[in-house]
């Protein structure tokens, strides 16, 4: 009697030699893969834990300045070059791959208030406390040559910031008022002023290149149009903005770093209410810089930490701090989206990874596939309480932790008081004002 049964030849399933790969026949029938959700959940849990294990973001510290680092500028054409200006008037140019200083020059007597590179990358500008604007070449002087600026402009008032146009040979300085200069002239082509107080920083829009934004010390942010030579509009907040940064991907979005520990992301068309308020710092926010993708930005604060925020979220996704890093004055996100540089007032510039648990270097295809799978698993289960708890957990220095707790208690108390006031008064007498609108005082056209 002939019976048809399964008969397998082991030669079809076992490899012939040790040099071959193992044979892995697959069957995707879900009946052969039970417990798919719990097993994926365990894999996601392991992936989240491993991400925290491999989160080692600190790469290097660039040592060499003899006073606090006041400002930094990125080279537009070279990823491995960065310029920094210190509080003793020194400007240093660093090579990030070798992590050493390749050029030092004494730019000013007093603070170097601002530094910016020209869009072609062949020269850079500095402004300082000695009321001068100096234009330098990016290449150092030849053998035996002295460090001399290409051009020096003497001004009447102290300049506090400088920024260069992204396409044309025009730059803007701010101090008493916002001046727009042509590179060939020694006097500004136009001066823009609105209000009587000093202006702390000015930034050109990288996309709509004729737009400028500036932060003044009478708590307002003013937007200018270079073509019209007039200010466009201004928004008055309840505390002073230290600096602002335009989103490199969205033409009308900019983020401002404020003294009231928050960052405000505005749409320049609708300044009445910010797009998002980013609340996580416990002290004044001193600097902000966008990632080249336009999806995240990094902020440096007077509490000795830097935080990375997504543009659409109100809370930070990452915080970097070290015992040795004191008040962080300036921060930059490199143009390859991978590294963050921060300069602090203890004379060091630190290099961090933008993605703390990322493996740098070339990844083998299997590694890359495994990392993509883990990333997708983490995303899929990110809202489960255990996984969320592990992914969110960051160690904070005691000062920041206790200060944050205190601020939370204060905020809760204020909210409770407002609720009670509303409950025990005539309905409709105290309207609900959204948190976003609370911090804006006025918008003036």
């Amino acid at each position, binding site marked *: 009697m002939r019976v048809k049964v399964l008969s397998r030849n082991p030669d079809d399933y076992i490899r012939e030699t040790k040099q071959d790969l193992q044979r892995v026949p697959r069957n995707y029938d879900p009946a052969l893969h039970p*417990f798919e959700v*719990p097993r994926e959940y365990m894999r996601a849990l392991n992936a989240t834990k491993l991400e925290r294990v491999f989160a080692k973001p600190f790469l290097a510290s660039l040592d060499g300045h003899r006073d606090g680092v006041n400002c930094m500028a990125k080279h537009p054409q070279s990823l491995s070059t960065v310029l920094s200006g210190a509080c003793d008037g020194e400007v240093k140019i660093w090579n990030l791959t070798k992590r050493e200083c390749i050029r030092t020059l004494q730019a000013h007597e007093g603070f170097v208030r601002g530094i910016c590179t020209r869009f072609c990358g062949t020269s850079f500008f500095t402004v300082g406390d000695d009321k001068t604007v100096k234009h330098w070449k990016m290449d150092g002087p030849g053998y035996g040559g002295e460090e001399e600026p290409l051009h020096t402009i003497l001004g009447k008032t102290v300049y506090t910031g400088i920024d260069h146009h992204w396409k044309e040979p025009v730059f803007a300085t701010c101090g008493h008022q916002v001046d727009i200069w042509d590179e060939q002239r020694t006097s500004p082509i136009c001066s823009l002023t609105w209000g009587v107080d000093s202006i702390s920083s000015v930034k050109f829009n990288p996309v709509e290149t004729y737009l400028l934004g500036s932060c003044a010390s009478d708590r307002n942010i003013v937007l200018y149009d270079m073509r019209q030579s007039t200010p466009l509009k201004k928004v008055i907040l309840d505390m002073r903005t230290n600096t602002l940064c335009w989103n490199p991907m969205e033409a009308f979005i900019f983020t401002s770093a404020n003294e009231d520990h928050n960052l405000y992301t505005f749409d320049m068309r609708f300044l009445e209410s910010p797009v998002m308020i980013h609340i996580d710092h416990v002290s004044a926010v001193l600097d902000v810089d966008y990632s080249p993708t336009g999806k995240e930005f990094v902020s440096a604060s007077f509490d000795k930490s830097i935080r990375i925020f997504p543009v659409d979220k109100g809370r930070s996704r990452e915080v970097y701090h070290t015992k040795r890093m004191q008040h962080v004055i300036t921060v930059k996100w490199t143009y390859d989206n991978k590294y963050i540089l921060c300069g602090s007032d203890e004379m060091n510039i630190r290099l961090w990874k933008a993605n703390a648990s990322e493996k740098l270097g070339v990844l083998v295809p299997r590694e890359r596939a495994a990392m993509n799978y883990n990333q997708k698993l983490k995303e899929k289960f990110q809202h489960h309480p255990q996984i969320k708890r592990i992914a969110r957990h960051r160690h904070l220095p005691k000062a920041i932790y206790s200060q944050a707790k205190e601020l939370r208690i204060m905020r809760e108390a204020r909210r409770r008081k407002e609720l009670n006031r509303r409950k025990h008064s005539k309905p409709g007498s105290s309207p609900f004002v959204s948190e976003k609108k609370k911090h804006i005082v006025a918008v003036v056209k």
Partner: protein
Amino acid sequence: MSLPGPWLGGSPAAPLIPPISPHRHLLLGGQRGHVAALDWQTKSLLCEINVMETVTDITWLHTETMFAVAQRRWLYVYDNQGVELNCLKRFNGVLRMEFLPYHFLLATASETGFLQYLDISVGKEVATICTRGGRLGVMGQNPANAIVHLGHSNGTVTLWSPNVKEPLVRMLCHQGGVRAVAVDSSGTYMATSGLDRKLRVYDLRAYQPLQSLVLPVGAGHLSFSQRGLLAAACGDVVQGVDHLMITCSFPLGLRFCPFEDVLGVGHGSGFTSLLVPGAGQANFDALENNPFRSQKQRQEWEVKALLEKIPSELITLDPGQLGRVDAITMEQKHQERVERLGFDPQAKPAFQPRRKLKGRSSAGSLLRRKKKVANEEQRTKIRKSLEQQQAPEREPKAAPRAQRPALDRFKK
């Protein structure tokens, strides 16, 4: 193929345990204490020992390197060379054992009515449940959700999870005691046989009976194959659903071999393997179960399986519950938030009609406009609830081939 009687020393063979997991190794245990482990395909003997005690049940653990033997007094764990690794004195009087492979749990049922779970990866006793069901001599496992089925002498079958002290489900299956329980590999069907000589098949999703067969002699052992064939050992015959197979003496143990069309039967004079065409799964998935794996592959698989070990807290009747939205907690959190803030942040703002000129903004026309919007909202709400009621009645349309999910071809 059957092994000659004298080879087993003439002692009646007790439950034979062919591999329920991937490896193609066979474990045989005799009631008088004779235990043998061999590679069934190459017929190479791994070990053959005599534990000098009555053996009530034996089972492989997660790989072919370890097996557990429930002896008269305590539970023992042996290496595949026959070396005794552990003697677990807390597990006394064990009658039946079931190994849950994805949780690394060994569930044991004792003669005093205790159901105990042992985590063999860390060696901890996870749960001890007093079932109050008397002597637990009948045990089965649902491979799809790791729930343990126990059969009792009052005709009920109870379903247990290590997290709950009470049975999750209690089903009255027979009018006498339950003699055997088996669940198929997809977790949809449960077959039970009782002292009332009936063989019943239940749908486990709805806990409803599907079929009922009357057998001349009650079935003492039941086993499902990978492809859904049911084998029952009744008296001195072994019966499949379609055909009859005969052995020489009373079968004492019954199990299908995974990925092969073979049924292994242990009986008083030895072990017999019977050919059952169509019983085994033809295409295995090597990342899941690979009967042809090398030692290296086995070691890698073991490490990965330990990393993915599902904690026992996740054993529930529905294994996919983790993937669903927890609507109750969401509702609770929303209410807490409303209380804390004083207003509902997700509520839609009330409709404010726009101010129009030329007398179109009188009180009456404003009210009319407001009523129009409110009625429209009510209409959409009613329409949605009607659709929800009518949705299960409508036939689902088959999506075009390009849009169907890839695993649809496995749906029956």
